[in-house]
């Protein structure tokens, strides 16, 4: 069964769904009217899956804050709403939901936030459960797809019962694991209509002050609800020497590793049901708290006077996988730990890299050739891979949009007149629209000396190719207004003559544009205009090949970093000058080459030839 048909499967059937798909299915069944998100691994597929269901509005918003605000507006209007994002998206959205927590939800609002425990695809490993404490919201933590489905349904009910947004906290190990889910059928929800109530919806100090006692009362009510919630359950074990309090997928790893141990599994993990834990503690020898990743339950239980072991035993970061939890717990029990005495094979790293013909390679080829003369402020997207081999052409990366402000900060911090190095910022189309525009405005407003490379590959590449306002298409692929990047950056204050659109495959032109713009002490923007090779807009061309007899081994083409260029042999040569030079002969993997021609422009010996240039005896 295809992924799409599993999503649409009839009620009461069992389907293999990822955690993200299960959340989307449950949201649809719960009668969600509006679903918002901004792409981000591991949360992206929640909205992608939801967009395939009929009868609701789904959107990838321009960033998480806007996604949250759209969701808040929908909830205020009385509609059931889901807003999904990756963990770092919560930082962007925080301003909106920290105050929405005061007004509270009208239509059920579920904030599905996915933490990248284990850092598979993220710049940090923050624990989103803090937001529940910070923002006074309950947290539900599923362990797998079935629970993700059940808890999403429960979250909408909880949200409406207590008038609060609910955080559904998943991790990569829930989002991106497929497991069996028994699905149900959609329920009708009342028609939404906004009911004006300024005391509630207008958060000026006086009104907000009146909401504070309600907020704290709600915390207490939620704690009572957590104490008796069926989402929190005790599994009596037979070996009571150690009992575990746990949440999320760590539960499954513990159950796998210690099948006979008693477990208190917290699905409704905040506010912490302290009395339930106290009761559980009475029946076990030692109490171990196993949570990913920060010691939140642990700290609160210790504060409540319970004796528990937590991060003094288990790691403070990363997943609590079976092989991670087993040795320390066995050590605690005084049992021997089995070790695998087989040698560990050594294998080279295989870091992710840019795709064959990726237009970003042209940019990094150019930057790496002026590496000594530039500081490169990077951003988040496929182009972050420019930090890697062979380009090594990024100096900083922090978070989405930060390339702009960081570049300006580097410019302003150096002594006046120090222009030994030019400052360049590199940012993608989706990231620019997400949070880069404000930074560029700051550069122009404060008269920074920064050259911005805006890599418009017409998609949100890193997260799998979602449309954004620069593409002229929405989440369903329908035509939408298309941002004109040239006009946009001009409107943000960049002089007309300092804005150029360049084909990144034309390496000499791009290099020249970079040299010229970095030499002028004003804000400038170079927009590249080739599409990502993984989207429909990209057309493959005929592969190139290397004429071995003509290849001099200079290796210049390998600086492009294209995976289709394969080294065939290496050597050394003593030049007339007496200098020894390294030589690298190459071939092109014609099964993957798409004929972009970037490498051709680096070959002084004309050894890289296209089909029309292949001599007849070669055919």
């Amino acid at each position, binding site marked *: *069964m295809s992924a799409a048909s599993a999503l649409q499967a009839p009620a009461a059937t*069992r389907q*293999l769904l*990822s955690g993200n798909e299960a959340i989307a299915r449950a949201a649809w069944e719960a009668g969600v009217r509006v679903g918002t998100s901004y792409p981000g*691994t*591991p949360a*992206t*597929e929640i909205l992608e899956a939801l967009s395939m269901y009929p009868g609701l509005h789904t959107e990838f918003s321009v960033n998480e804050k806007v996604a949250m605000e759209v969701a808040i507006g929908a909830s205020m209007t009385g509609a059931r709403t889901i807003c999904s994002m990756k963990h770092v998206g919560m930082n962007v959205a925080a301003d909106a939901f920290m105050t929405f927590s005061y007004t509270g939800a009208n239509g059920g609002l579920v904030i599905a936030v996915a933490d990248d425990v284990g850092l*598979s*695809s993220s710049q940090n490993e923050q624990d989103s459960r803090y937001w529940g404490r910070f923002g006074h919201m309950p947290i539900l933590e599923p362990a*797998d797809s079935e629970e993700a489905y059940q808890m999403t349904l429960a979250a909408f009910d909880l949200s409406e019962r207590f008038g609060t947004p609910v955080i559904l906290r998943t991790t990569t*190990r829930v989002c*991106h*694991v*497929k*497991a*069996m889910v028994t699905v149900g059928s959609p329920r009708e929800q009342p028609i939404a209509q906004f009911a004006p109530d300024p005391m509630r919806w207008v958060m000026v100090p006086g009104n907000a002050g009146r909401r504070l006692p309600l907020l704290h009362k709600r915390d207490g009510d939620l704690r009572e609800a957590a104490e008796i919630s069926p989402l929190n359950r005790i599994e009596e074990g037979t070996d009571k020497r150690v009992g575990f309090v746990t949440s999320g*997928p760590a539960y*499954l*790893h513990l*159950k*796998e*590793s210690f099948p006979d141990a008693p477990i208190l599994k917290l699905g409704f993990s905040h506010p912490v049901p302290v009395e339930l834990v106290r009761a559980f503690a009475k029946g076990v020898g030692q109490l171990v708290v196993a949570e990913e990743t920060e010691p939140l339950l642990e700290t609160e239980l210790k504060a409540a006077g319970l004796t528990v072991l937590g991060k003094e035993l288990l790691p403070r970061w990363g997943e609590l*996988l*079976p*092989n991670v939890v087993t040795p320390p717990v066995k050590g605690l029990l005084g049992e021997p730990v089995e070790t*695998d005495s*087989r*040698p*560990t*094979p*050594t*294998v*080279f*790293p*295989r*870091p*992710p*890299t*840019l*795709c064959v013909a990726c237009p970003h390679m042209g940019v990094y080829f150019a930057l790496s050739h002026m590496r000594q003369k530039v500081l490169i402020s990077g951003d988040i997207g*496929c182009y972050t*891979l420019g930090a890697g*081999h*062979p380009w090594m052409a990024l100096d900083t990366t922090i978070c989405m949009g930060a390339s702009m402000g960081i570049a300006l900060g580097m410019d302003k911090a150096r002594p006046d007149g120090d222009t030994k190095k030019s400052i360049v910022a590199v940012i993608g189309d989706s990231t620019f629209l997400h949070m880069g525009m404000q930074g560029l405005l700051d550069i122009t407003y404060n008269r920074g000396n920064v050259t911005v490379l805006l890599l418009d590959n017409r998609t949100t590449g*890193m*997260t*799998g190719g979602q449309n954004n306002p620069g593409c002229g298409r929405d989440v369903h692929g329908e035509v939408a207004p298309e941002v004109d990047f040239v006009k946009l950056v001009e409107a943000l204050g960049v002089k007309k003559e300092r804005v150029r659109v360049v084909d990144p495959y034309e390496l000499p032109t791009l290099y020249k544009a970079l040299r010229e713009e970095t030499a002028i002490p004003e804000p400038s923007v170079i927009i590249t205009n080739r599409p990502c090779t993984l989207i429909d807009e990209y057309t493959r061309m005929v592969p190139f090949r290397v004429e071995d007899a003509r290849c001099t081994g200079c290796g210049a083409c*390998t600086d492009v*970093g294209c*995976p289709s260029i*394969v*080294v065939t042999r*290496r050597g050394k040569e003593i030049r007339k000058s007496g200098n020894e030079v390294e030589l*690298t002969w190459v071939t092109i993997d014609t*099964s993957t080459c798409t004929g972009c021609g970037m490498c051709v422009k680096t070959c002084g010996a004309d050894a890289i030839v296209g089909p029309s240039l292949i001599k007849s005896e070669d055919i």
Partner: protein
Amino acid sequence: MQNGITNILVAGIGGQGVMTATEILAQLAIAKGNDVKKTEVAGMAQRGGVVNSHLRFGPHVLSPVIPAGCADILLAFEPAEALRWSKEVRLGGLVLINTARQLPPVVSGGLYPYPEDPVGEMRRAGLTVYAFDATAIAHELGEIKLINTIMLGAIADHLPFPVDDLKEQVLSRFRARKPALAALNERAFEAGRSGARAAA
């Protein structure tokens, strides 16, 4: 096999079809009445990086992650990737390998060596290894994307299910969407099966 759970690790490089292969195996396990869990990969890791998927099936699966050193079968789309994950395979477990090497830029650029004899190294570590060039077979059949089906053919004789049921699971996907490709995939499946047998 532990507690009636079969653990299969599928490994390769982003873009090779590791996920599709695992999905097909998962669907077959479901059709046979098993509980199933399967890990996915998304985002950054897909860009030419290391990709692997854990498939676990049996009466009731808890952790989606195969416990260290407990994989029954490793189905590897590239020899260095097979070696990378080989310690996840239990003693006496089976490794099925496509021997066509894929060198990442850090290797072809001379920063790291490629392991000299991955297959030999795994055999010396006590694993049963069936290795053959699935990529060459795919080229012979005229379509590089067939590697996927060829590797599924290779594992067909080693699952607790009849070979024809896996074949049906693979081909039904094509019959539904691209009937013209069904016959070609059937040949690829059989070629993979004989490839693994000849390597035994």
